[in-house]
């Protein structure tokens, strides 16, 4: 029935596409006039909306979602906007589709609609014959004359034949229409590649940015942390050296302080190293490192995993492990800072081609990937691996971060060669 309903709609509105295409082409001839540009933009946008409706219908028939082919609009004034529309091949393919659809689409949809309408028509023929005056419906096909409504039932085989044809072929005909439409309405493989290249360029820039920011952070941490403490330490020791004879009590006090400073500096160095590449991650892999995070967390954290093999030791490529670990660790830190949660559940599922992880808390929610730079930073980090991070966090909670990271587990052989001592 979906097919037939779609056929009727296509039949009814196919002309509109041609009108829109014609109007926007006509607008191009008037761009020198003041109304030309807004007219063209309005018509093109209308045609896009019209095409989008057909994308949905086509998607329903094909059982998959159609990809929109349009380029993203950057920024700029009305000239940038018209440039964007004019230079996008999808604009012209929409118009071409509108023409093709008006002819071929109408033909196919018309056939389907006629089969359905014919079936109904001949099925209810006796009724028509009964309720209309003689001379209107009593001469079907102009060959015979029907004198009694019951004779109308003689046309039921015709209804049956049409009905069978409709039942048998309507979905397939509309499928042909859908395939034809999809060929025009979806991006060409060149456009898909172009989009991919743009996405890669963006994620590469992000990767470079986040790597630079990371190095800067480490430098700052060292400068303000361990390095400063060591300077303070040497100052204390120097002063103690001076005092040891003049004022032994004071010297002892300075030495005690120096010892405290040393252990703080060591702690800071340890934390820093752990932040760069935690030893447990290098030694035991992702699952154990996440379990270690859970143990250290200030609130109860449940860790559930599957697909990591016996003893949860399946290893992933080192950069992937580091990225996944970083995301989980940042997510946990965020929960600690913002969520006021009582409990966190971490789930990690390793599939043959991807790693899925979710971090859910029972806190107050309201986390926004757009607002916080933290979540955005995680997304950028993941983008380097074509990974994604989505957040659902209604006010009042719960907050669930879902990470998807394409990757393949290391085979035991490559594991050995990349394993560290």
């Amino acid at each position, binding site marked *: 029935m979906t097919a037939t309903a779609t056929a009727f709609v296509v039949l009814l509105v196919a002309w509109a596409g041609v009108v829109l295409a014609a109007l926007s082409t006509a607008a191009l001839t008037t761009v020198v006039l003041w109304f030309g540009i807004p007219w063209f933009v309005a018509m093109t946008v209308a045609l896009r909306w019209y095409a989008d409706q057909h994308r949905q219908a086509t998607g329903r028939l094909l059982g998959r979602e159609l990809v929109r082919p349009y380029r993203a609009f950057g920024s700029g004034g009305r000239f940038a906007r018209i440039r964007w529309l004019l230079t996008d091949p999808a604009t012209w393919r929409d118009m071409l589709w509108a023409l093709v659809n008006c002819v071929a689409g109408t033909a196919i949809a018309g056939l389907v609609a006629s089969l359905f309408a014919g079936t109904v028509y001949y099925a209810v023929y006796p009724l028509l014959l009964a309720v209309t005056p003689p001379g209107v419906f009593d001469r079907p096909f102009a060959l015979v004359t029907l004198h009694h409504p019951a004779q109308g039932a003689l046309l039921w085989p015709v209804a049956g034949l049409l009905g069978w044809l409709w039942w048998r072929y309507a979905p397939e005909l509309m499928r042909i229409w859908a395939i034809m439409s999809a060929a025009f309405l979806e991006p060409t493989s060149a456009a898909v590649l172009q989009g991919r290249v743009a996405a890669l360029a963006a994620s590469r820039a992000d990767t470079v940015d986040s790597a630079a920011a990371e190095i800067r952070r480490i430098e700052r941490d060292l400068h*303000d942390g361990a390095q*400063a403490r060591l*300077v303070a330490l040497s*100052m204390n*020791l*120097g*002063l103690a*050296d*001076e005092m040891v004879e003049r004022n032994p009590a004071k010297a002892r006090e300075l030495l005690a302080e120096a010892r405290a*400073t040393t252990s703080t500096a060591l702690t800071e160095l340890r934390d820093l190293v752990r932040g760069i590449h935690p030893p447990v991650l290098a030694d035991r892999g992702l699952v154990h490192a996440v379990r270690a995070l859970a143990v250290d967390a200030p609130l109860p954290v449940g860790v559930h995993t599957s697909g990591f093999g016996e003893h949860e030791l399946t290893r992933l490529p080192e950069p992937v492990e580091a990225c996944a670990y970083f995301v989980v660790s940042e997510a946990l830190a965020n929960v600690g800072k913002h969520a006021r949660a009582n409990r966190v559940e971490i789930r990690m599922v390793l599939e043959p081609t991807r790693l899925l992880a979710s971090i859910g808390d029972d806190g107050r929610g309201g986390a926004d990937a757009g607002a916080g730079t933290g979540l955005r930073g995680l997304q950028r980090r993941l983008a380097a691996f074509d990974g994604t991070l989505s957040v659902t966090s209604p006010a009042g909670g719960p907050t669930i971060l879902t990470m998807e990271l394409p990757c393949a587990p290391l085979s035991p052989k490559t594991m050995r060669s990349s394993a560290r001592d």
Partner: protein
Amino acid sequence: MRALIAEDHALLREGLIRLLDSYDIEVVEAVADEPSLVRALRREDIDVAIVDVRLPPTGTDEGLRAAVQARQQRPGLPVLVLSQYVEQLYARELLASEQGGVGYLLKDRVSNVKQFVDAVQQVAEGGTVMDPEVVAHLLRRHDGPLAGLTPREREVLEHMATGRSNAAIAASMFVTEKAVGKHIANIFAKLGLAQSDDDNRRVLAVLAYLQG
């Protein structure tokens, strides 16, 4: 003596105050960021400012820039710049005024408390103090013209460029002040620099030559 300290790390700030205090240098103000440093450098009652290169808000080189700017407005304002690493460019900027009363030291130098306090006093009195690392670097750059110096003279030059007085050089090399004077005269002759009796002027001349 009255000193101003600009250091954002509380631990180091307190340590410096304590250290200077035990050598009777009164810290009249200790600030932790650039805006308060700029304001404090306008004080008339300070004999020396000890400034960390890196200060908030951006944590880059605002301490140094504030110091250089203050010295442009008040030539000769004694400033000792401390840093966790030495950067030749910063040394050059500090020396650009060709005025004394300036110092640039690694923070590590505070561990030798006596020498550090000496350096503070020297800067306060209008002297010039350069970190040995800066000087070593400058000497490396001038291998050609310096090849004519004897090892002894080279050593004296190195000490002199860090801003030490004849007496201090003599003490650390275990020779008499007279011998040091003679070495210095030779160095100046070999490098073609005009002699000067004023210690401070001499240091500046040497540094200017090395920076050249």
